[in-house]
């Protein structure tokens, strides 16, 4: 084994990936556009006309009813719809079930605070400061990003100030980000999205191999003392790197769309490893396609033979399929990857739980098997 050869071949593959617009489109842009389109249409990141926020009012009013003024100002934004709760407990319940995206606790000295401000607006040290607590749905990007500034603005407005840097007695404190228990559509489809992008490697591998065969490059490589092992190793490593970048891009996409599973770093690492192993089976399917296909044009069409079942039975596209189709799904490797990722992210399964271990075993064995078949077939029926 000469690593100089393996490294040189990997470098070549990487340069090809970034320099050929068609390749770049097929393995990065296309899956991402597709994932985004699907994600959006399943309502994962759909725009909401207004945000529901819960209010728990602990304010003790005297002459001035500050909380009333605050309510009106909040409603006037037209972005927020208000739900008033009599106690913190019921507000928190609704928040954790996703019925409201935020809960504001108005403190008991809120009106006092406003009065103190209006009395001596220019002497901040004589103000009675009060703190509004804000609880946010941490799974919702709009909640964590959009709601606090809106409320801050409203607080500034009720003191009659207009400048951006407010000077007033109210402090908005984000008390905690609350885990919302009801999973969104995105939570259901995000695991499949990780699987999704990698499946397109089948097309890319079959294209690359048939093209190099057609134009004589494969012949050229075979005339050098490069061993089949060195060559295939370089290919496997290259496509794993590509799969890693794909998975990272998909992760960024779903993160932006609001995907926030309550799992630690090890689970993420584990998920990426799973996608890497899975990418090997796609290299295998790509090689099988390249063996059967007579030309690179035919390879594209033929690759769908492997792409489509994996797509429809084993990714987020399959989440809504009939139970019969889901049983058939057990014959495609992508099913197990999506299943494992769903268990990890959505159901909070531990990496060492039996269901995960079983999935991982199935994925590893089937992927190595498919890759081996691909390599053997390609080697045997390879025609120059």
């Amino acid at each position, binding site marked *: 084994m*000469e690593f*100089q*050869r393996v*490294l*040189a*071949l990997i*470098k*070549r593959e990487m*340069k*090809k990936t970034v*320099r*050929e617009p068609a390749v770049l489109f097929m393995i990065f842009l296309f899956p991402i556009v597709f994932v985004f389109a699907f994600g959006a249409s399943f309502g994962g990141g759909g725009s909401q006309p207004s945000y529901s926020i819960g209010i728990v009012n602990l304010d003790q009013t005297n002459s001035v009813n500050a909380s009333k003024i605050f309510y009106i100002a909040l409603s006037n934004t037209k972005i927020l719809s208000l739900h008033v709760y009599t106690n913190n407990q019921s507000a928190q319940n609704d928040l954790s079930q996703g019925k409201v995206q935020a809960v504001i606790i108005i403190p008991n000295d809120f009106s006092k605070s406003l009065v103190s401000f209006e009395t001596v607006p220019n002497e901040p040290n004589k103000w009675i400061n009060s703190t509004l607590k804000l609880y946010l749905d941490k799974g919702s990007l709009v909640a964590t990003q959009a709601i606090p500034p809106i409320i801050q603005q409203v607080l500034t407005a009720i003191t009659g100030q207009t400048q951006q840097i407010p000077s007033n007695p109210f402090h908005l404190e984000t008390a905690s980000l609350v885990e919302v228990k009801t999973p969104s559509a995105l939570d259901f489809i995000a695991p499949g999205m990780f699987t999704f992008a990698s499946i397109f490697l089948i097309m890319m591998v079959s294209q690359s191999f048939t093209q190099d065969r057609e*134009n*004589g*490059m494969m*012949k*050229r*490589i*075979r*005339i*050098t*003392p*490069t*061993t089949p092992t060195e060559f295939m190793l370089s290919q496997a490593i290259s496509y794993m790197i590509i799969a890693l970048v794909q998975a990272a891009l998909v992760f960024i996409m779903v993160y932006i769309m609001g995907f926030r599973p309550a799992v630690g770093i090890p689970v993420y690492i584990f998920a990426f490893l799973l996608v890497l192993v899975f990418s090997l089976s796609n290299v295998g399917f790509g090689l099988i396609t390249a063996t059967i296909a007579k030309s690179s044009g035919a390879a594209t069409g033929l690759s769908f033979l492997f792409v489509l079942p994996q797509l429809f039975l084993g990714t987020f596209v399959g989440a809504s399929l009939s139970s019969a189709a889901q049983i058939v799904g057990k014959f495609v490797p992508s099913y197990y990857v999506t299943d494992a990722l769903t268990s990890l992210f959505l159901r909070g399964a531990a990496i060492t739980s039996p269901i995960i271990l079983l999935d991982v075993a199935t994925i590893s064995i089937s992927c190595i098997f498919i890759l081996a078949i691909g390599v053997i077939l390609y080697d045997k029926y390879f025609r*120059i």
Partner: protein
Amino acid sequence: MSESAIIIEDLVKKFEDVIAVDDVNLQVANGELFGLLGPNGAGKTTIINILCGLIKPTSGSAIIGGYDVQNEPMKVKELIGVCIQETAVYPYLTGAENVNLFGDLHVMDSETLKARRTMLFEKMGLTSEAKRRAGKYSGGMKRRLSLILALIHNPQIAFLDEPTVAMDPQSRHAVWDFIKDLKNEGKTIILTTHYMEEAEELCDRIGIIDHGKLIALGSPKVLISNNLVKNLEDVFIKLTGRKIREEV
């Protein structure tokens, strides 16, 4: 090493419906520039493919530099440099990157690689193109790059399969000079061509091949005088009753 760099014995290659190589026997001496001359479809490329281990012969054997191609293909691959018939270069790599890749595949150290690369680009008149993507090269430039890829590792034995096909006269003469230099360095070369003038100009000895059969063997001078004709073109017409190419 034996006196013959290349020994081909009773070589036969059948494809489903054609006999591409029909019982060819041939020896090429060390340092010899041997020309395989024949029309399209004669079997020249098939012979080259067998010699570099790309395809298996139906029967017969080939020994290169003392190694049997069938039994010790890796040893053979380390000895040879092959310029395949297709103009195959990676279009998305620059000329220099293409060459570096093949240098690495031959496990060359970076200094030797760089020195040879510079020298070969200079000889082939490609120095100013080295940093451009090979996909943007003209046909003749790609073929010259292809030749550099074949010879970057300074192989003792070279197979050049129609290296000047479809080249403009200027590129062709540059390649001819280059091949002459290789010969002067003592390399053993098999050159296939269907250009008579190329064979006549360059080769020590020529084998004329038609329908897979070796029908004549000898130096250009001897072939011409033995057949009592003026040039190689006439030798071919006399032996086969056909012209080697319908159109020039």
